[in-house]
């Protein structure tokens, strides 16, 4: 499966996962689409999000956090556009979320949602609006 403009966080070194996530969120002017959890559905979503990340020079990027626990402390430190986003992510209800250039969580795609092209692009746009 093709991954475009995607950072896959390591599973074996949680500290590295946290560091990479922190850098991507806080140090880079990126609009991030963060897929959480492992498995084929998550993998497909990562691939799909990469397809809509635009060209290399554009600020959209994708992160695959297979272990959300590894970056839980980082997620708790983020602002959220709507109350409850962080709880949904850390409570295992989120398939993915997006963050803006200003590092706040703008949208959460729930595991119960149909994460089609429309929903993926909608999440990106909510992070850019």
């Amino acid at each position, binding site marked *: 499966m093709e991954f475009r403009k995607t950072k896959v966080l390591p599973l074996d070194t949680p500290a590295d996962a946290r560091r990479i996530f922190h850098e991507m969120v806080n140090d880079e002017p990126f609009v991030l689409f963060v897929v959480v959890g492992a498995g084929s559905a998550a993998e497909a979503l990562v691939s799909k999000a990469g397809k809509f990340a*635009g*060209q290399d020079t*554009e600020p959209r990027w994708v992160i695959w956090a297979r272990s959300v626990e590894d970056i839980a402390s980082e997620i708790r430190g983020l602002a959220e556009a709507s109350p409850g986003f962080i709880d949904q992510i850390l409570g295992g209800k989120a398939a993915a979320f997006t963050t803006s250039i200003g590092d706040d969580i703008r949208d959460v795609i729930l595991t119960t949602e149909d994460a089609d092209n*429309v929903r993926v*692009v*909608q999440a990106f*746009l909510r992070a850019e609006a």
Partner: protein
Amino acid sequence: MKRASLLVSLLLVASAQAALAASAPPPAPLLTFVERDIDGDSHDVTPGAATVDINSTIGITIDRAVLAARLGGASGSETAALVADYVTLQNGITELTRALSQPAADKTGSLRARAGLILLNYATSAPKDAAPTARPNRFRAALDRALDSAAGQSTAAQFSALQQAGHEEIDRLQQELNAALAKEGVRLMLGAWLGASAGTQPVHLPGFDSYADQTRYEVERFRLVFTDEQRQQYQNAATAAKMINAGGGAAVAQAVVLDLAARSFPETLKALQALRQDCDNLVAAAEKAAPPLAAEVKVVAVDLGQQAKWLEATITSLADTAKTNPAGLPAAATAAVREATTRLAAVEKEVDGLRKDLTSAVAALQTPAREVLDAAAALKRAVDAEASTVWGEITAGSVVANLNAATLEFGDKVKRFELADLPATSQLDLELTGPRADGDEVVIKLGVQKGTASPNQDVEIEQLRLRRMLVHVETSAGLVFANRPRQPSDTGGKTPFQAAPAYSAFLKKGWRGCAFWNNVLNPGLGISVAALDFNLDGVPEVGIGAALSIVRDWLQGGIGYNVAARRWYGFVGVGLPLPTFGMTTTSNTSAGK
């Protein structure tokens, strides 16, 4: 006919109000207008109190999205829901197109993102249990396919795919909306009317009716011809000038003011006269009742005084009797009481008669008093109505200022369209609407009819004021006051001024978007030719001057040259409508005093 009553303070307030009104944000226009003047220049027509040149062609465009939104409110719930979806998508596409066309203003991409979200939020708005054929789900499926084709490409390509899918869905919704409105029997009409002082007539809008064009009529821009009305005005000015020069300035001023009042406030004057008559009636009724009443009151008052004196004397007498002859007191007191009873009975009768007379007098005054109150109320109504009319004429500068567009009915020759068949544009060539005058008005209305039995409803009304906006010549006639050289017959030390009739021709130009300039200030620059008589020999001398005019030529001023006398002079002038003076004119031998 020009009405003339004007107060400078009113004008200033009017212009201030116009400025305030102009600052309010306009609503999204259903009809947009582009004016193309006879010089070939185009001008956007601002909705609201718009002014266009009297010879222009007006391009009319109907915004289907706005129309659909308006129709949604008047339709059934299912059609209204369809309209709501249509309007949402149309709004999203409009915003997205705008954002994508201004990349420099959208460096962060937030504008295009917000616009794109309008489409995506609509696509994801269906409830979970909604059928796949539900409109949002249908659009979501189409959008998903469109995005598939843009996968792996730039974000610009993704927005382009969004835009394309949005357009296609709007087309589908448009067809569905057309069918729904046709099923409901909704028919649309666009009509135009020309409102002039002679009346209001429908005019031809190509594509929308079967009215015939009128013979082409161009209001000439540079025509130096004086109308019969202006020639009469000149004659009136000549008579007025002779009266003024003969020392009858006050009489002329009074006649002008009365004429203006009669022109501007005819009903008010009638009401004032009625009130005066009713007041006279009331005074007469009071005078009729008052003298007998006054005499009666006087008699009663005198009588009461006499009775009081008798009572005082009787009490004194009884007191003396008690001191000097106590034994005789009972008899004296009994006699006094008897006499007092008789006197008081007479007094009571007099007072009761006075009370009755006063009551009947008040009743007699009630009717004339009521008539006075009614006349005062009628006067107030007349003042309110006519002041409002004059105000409208001042601020709009036209006698058709109060054209009530809502009462204009679509005639049988106006075509009824289904939404799908409604032409999107038309061209109104004002020169094909027949004779027109500065200040006339064109009304354009979009109406809707739901079923053949229901009445028409106005969806949008636009009123365009016709003005001579391009450079043109206007003529006028009036009075000028020129400072002439002193003559041996002059007395006093003041500079002599001489009144004289004058014809004027002014170059003028309108100012689009400035109602105060067009309707009130209306300045002009030109020449004035006056019939002077500086040497007071009764033979007219031609004076030619450069003149500036304001307030629709009512006020003029400038510098002139008396050709015969070979002298320069300064002058001011008035172009107010002058009445026809009936008095015998006098010679001009004492001018300037």
